[in-house]
């Protein structure tokens, strides 16, 4: 079988698709690409099904040798590979792709025509790093088989890519919104170093809550939860499925791609929108993807 050899893995490089659904009632969150927009776009450009598995690199990319002629597309942030992003590129057997530190956001996706053909666990190829479901971060020497998820020809290079934007993260009200004043919307927060795929920890002005002791309840992706110290945590792709901290807000689906590109020390602020606005933003993103 044709494959890709991992020469060096980078900082935290994993195989991801769009996630593993149907297991939250066993305490296993979906995992999946931290920037699902980039993964889908890269796959579509390479002629794959949008849910094909790809390689997700974080902050510092790796080096990969191709054992076969194929087509790849890099999507997300620029990791200094010397190739254009959002563009199908032919590579030859024996060639090496070398990525370095990120020049912009936190994640870059290496999508390969056919997808990464690792076996699926519980319906998904995604790595859930904290539990080990679906595998582990890649190591030097790993061989990644190329899969069979190519469904059409690679796509032409898009004229433009919707910008990530650097305005406030847009949120809708969370289940405990009424127990919070407007503090979340006044401050600016710094993404803490200890952020990971479970949660983005923010540091800034403490957010007081009147919620007090809460009965543990389900927590969705993108929930902004506020522990007693008042420092918000955004629940991310490997988030806990239930929790007991109040949630004033939830990041909208259209901004999940921005969460995936946040780096430690980035600044974020929040803006409240309605569910209708959130869905309109999502639809705009979808229309661009459908146009590929």
């Amino acid at each position, binding site marked *: 079988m044709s494959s890709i050899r991992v020469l060096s893995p980078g900082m935290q490089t994993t195989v991801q698709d769009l996630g593993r659904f149907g297991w*939250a009632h066993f305490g296993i969150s979906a995992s999946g690409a931290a920037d699902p927009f980039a993964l889908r776009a890269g796959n579509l450009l390479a002629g794959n099904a949008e849910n094909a598995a790809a390689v997700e690199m974080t902050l510092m990319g790796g080096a990969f040798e191709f054992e076969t002629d194929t087509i790849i597309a890099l999507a997300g942030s620029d990791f200094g590979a010397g190739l254009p992003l959002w563009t199908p590129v032919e590579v030859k057997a024996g060639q090496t792709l070398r990525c370095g530190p990120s020049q912009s956001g936190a994640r870059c996706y290496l999508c390969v025509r056919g997808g990464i053909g690792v076996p699926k666990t*519980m319906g998904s190829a995604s790595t859930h790093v*904290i539990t080990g479901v679906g595998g582990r971060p890649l190591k030097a020497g790993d061989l990644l088989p190329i899969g069979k998820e190519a469904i059409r020809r690679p796509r032409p290079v898009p004229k433009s890519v919707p910008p990530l934007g650097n305005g406030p993260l847009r949120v809708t009200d969370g289940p405990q919104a009424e127990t919070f004043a407007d503090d979340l919307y006044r401050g600016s927060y710094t993404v803490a170093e200890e952020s990971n795929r479970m949660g983005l920890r923010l540091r800034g002005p403490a957010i007081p809550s009147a919620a007090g002791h809460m009965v543990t309840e389900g927590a969705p992706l993108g929930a902004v939860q506020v522990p007693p110290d008042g420092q918000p945590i955004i629940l991310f792709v490997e988030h806990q*499925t239930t929790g007991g901290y109040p949630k004033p807000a939830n990041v909208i689906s259209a901004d999940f791609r921005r969460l995936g590109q946040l780096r430690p020390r980035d600044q974020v602020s929040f803006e409240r929108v309605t569910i209708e606005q959130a869905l309109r933003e*999502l639809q705009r993103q979808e229309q661009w993807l459908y146009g590929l």
Partner: protein
Amino acid sequence: MTIRPASDRSLHVVFGERIGAEAYAAVARLTHALTGAREVLNLHPAYTSVLIDFDPRRYTHERIEALVHACLDGPAAPDPEPRQVEIAVEFGGQCGPDLEDVARHTGFSPAGVIERFTGAVYQVYFVGFSTCFPYLGGLPEELATPRLPAPRKHVPEGSVAIGGPQAGVYPLASPGGWRLIGRTRLRLFDPQAVPPPLLRMGDRVRFVPEAGQ
């Protein structure tokens, strides 16, 4: 019952705030009815609520809410047969560093705590937190002990614990604030096994002292 969006892709159904058999029955009924429904991506049952994730490109909150009402108004699906699971525990010592504290708080001897703890039958109310953590109802009231004032950074895998009026078992090493009274060698979570968790909502659990204790 209240139903409201928790995000642009999820709906939160809440059956009051009282933990107990009544809320459990409603949560279990809705969870079982929605398991495998094509409109649903993920279900997060908890003590008194169910969070439903869906794909907002395909379905609306109104559609999912109608589905919830249809499930609750229709005939209840029979609950899956609860399984009886016995968990062997080594109590006290390094395995249960908080056993003495629980004994002090409850006024029993450590042996008395173990006797009462192993004398009860527990029910898995739901499974959640981070990875297959079973939230158990049925702890004898006299064993209820407040959580630690500050959570431990590292709770070992298999720790059997009391948190307020609840009991639970940590399937993986993680931070945690519950009182650790023992540890089991039984693996509650195996990433290679499908389906992975040993315990499911509704299962009945008994703890027994490990042979030799």
